[in-house]
């Protein structure tokens, strides 16, 4: 450009010089500090991992030495038992119970989770004190593992699926309430503000602006929690809450490893089906 304007014959050489032009890079004063920071972070990571290896008695040599034990276990487990009357049919029936535990544990926690989510989202909470209290309640339900809730409820209602449902309701209220509250805090506050200016009440603003704005996220998170809860109810079965987890536990205790593998195959199919179902519903919601 400049060469053309001045009309100098050396325009080609000038362009080439421009292309190869260089400028000194300014000295980056923070470079050394950043290097030190990275070194410290990596060192700290290595140290905690060494501590973790010691703390868990992590020793690959032991695994190699004991390979016969594993081989014996696997040889007992295969082939899986496909005895319809004694293994497969009870397994399917128990799987259905597991599914029902996960389903009820999810849906029955919706009202509690919704209420606590509204009270504990910064944007919708009516008062800072209410906000803190609701958050504390959610933290409690989240912090106590579902298996502990299950043991507590077993003392009241005895062993069985009912205790499992109650345990999942408690734990899922804590987790889903937290997830929903965060979803509400992240959505666009515009419609809610717009309704404020029309003189709508707080409840009206929630039902006509905040909630309709977050429904897709809410249902997506609900499906995700259903997926997780079905798998949790398997573990609850191990402590006596019924379902296929109980059968797996019994199979292990009676050394019927071939039956155990059959149950695990059934569980695998259940988990895949639930996962596909929740992915399908989430996809449909996004349209």
């Amino acid at each position, binding site marked *: 450009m400049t060469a053309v304007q001045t009309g100098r014959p050396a325009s080609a050489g000038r362009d080439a010089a421009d292309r190869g032009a260089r400028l000194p890079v300014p000295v980056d004063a923070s470079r050394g500090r950043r290097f030190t920071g990275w070194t410290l972070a990596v060192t700290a990571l290595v140290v905690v991992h060494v501590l973790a290896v010691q703390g868990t008695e992590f020793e690959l040599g032991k695994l190699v030495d004991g390979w016969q034990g594993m081989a014996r276990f696997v040889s007992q487990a295969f082939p899986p038992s496909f005895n319809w009357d004694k293994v497969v049919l009870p397994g399917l029936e128990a799987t259905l119970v597991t599914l029902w535990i996960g389903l009820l544990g999810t849906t029955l926690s919706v009202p509690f989770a919704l209420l606590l989510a509204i009270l504990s989202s910064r944007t919708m909470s009516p008062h800072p004190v209410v906000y803190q209290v609701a958050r504390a309640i959610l933290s409690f339900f989240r912090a106590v593992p579902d298996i502990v809730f299950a043991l507590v409820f077993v003392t009241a209602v005895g062993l069985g699926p009912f205790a499992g449902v109650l345990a999942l309701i408690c734990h899922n209220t804590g987790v889903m309430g937290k997830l929903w509250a965060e979803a509400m805090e992240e959505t666009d506050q515009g419609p809610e*503000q717009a309704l404020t200016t029309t003189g709508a009440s707080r409840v009206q603003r929630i039902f006509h602006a905040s909630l309709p704005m977050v*429904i897709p996220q809410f249902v997506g998170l609900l499906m995700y929690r259903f997926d997780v809860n079905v798998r949790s109810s398997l573990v609850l079965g191990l402590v006596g809450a019924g379902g296929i987890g109980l059968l797996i536990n019994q199979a292990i205790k009676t050394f019927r490893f071939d039956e155990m593998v059959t149950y695990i195959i059934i569980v695998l199919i259940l988990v895949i089906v639930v996962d596909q179902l929740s992915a399908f519903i989430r996809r449909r919601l996004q349209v």
Partner: protein
Amino acid sequence: MANATPGAGTPAAASAAGLRVSGLTKRFGDRAVLDGVDFEVRRGELVAFLGANGSGKSTTLKCVMGLTEPDAGSIELDGRRLDALRGQALVEARRRAAMVFQKICLVPRRTALDNVCAGGLSRVRGAGSVSPLFFPKDLREEAMACLDRVGLADRALDRAGRLSGGQQQRVAIARALCQRAGVVLADEPVSALDPAAAEQVMTLLVDLAHDEGLAVAAVLHQPDLALRHADRAIGLLRGRIAYDGPMSAMSVDVQEELYRPDHGADGSEPAGSAAQTPGATSREERVAPGPRPLVKGTIA
């Protein structure tokens, strides 16, 4: 092309003040965003608020709507002074003013009709106000009439998110009508719209002012839009009124002064600052003005 309807051309019935603001002052920290702002918007006229980012236009509207508390000054809506009212009475009085937002602020999943109905929610109490399924028939019919007024009756049952930007803004205006507001405050209503849609929305706002006797105050960033549509213009410069008069009488010098960048005197023109409005606008209040002294004498 001079303004078709300068201040003198408005209907005679429009003399009543819809909105009267006096001595409005608002500080953020030690910075006065509004410094004794006085103005009036009469029924039947559309007043354009002009001024650079940070001049206090949006803060003025927010004070009127109660989204921000002013430090001093009085606001009168339809003849009722807001500072004398508290609680429910204040909410009632404020309901006479409706706001139209740059970001439109509809619920995209709900139908256009349901969004318009939401404007009338304050008249519905109890179970009828929990879900659109239970909205009373008269509210739905009134909302239909409002949608018809903005020319979108045929899209009533479409989801708001499926409408174009211009149509969405017209639905938002219908929501303001359904609120039965006498005063409409529009905060950069067309900044996010393409020129044709902007023209349509501005025409609608002017029609509402002239035909329905609404008092319309619109923050605009495009002086040419103001020139074509506004009955009157109010220019704000660093929290003070720098111009108040017919848009057609606003000289180019005044326009340049209103939109002059705070840093350096590189002779910018208002068209330049108008062109960069979409997106960069709502942050207005956070942009600190430069330390230049007031040059009020040169314009007012």
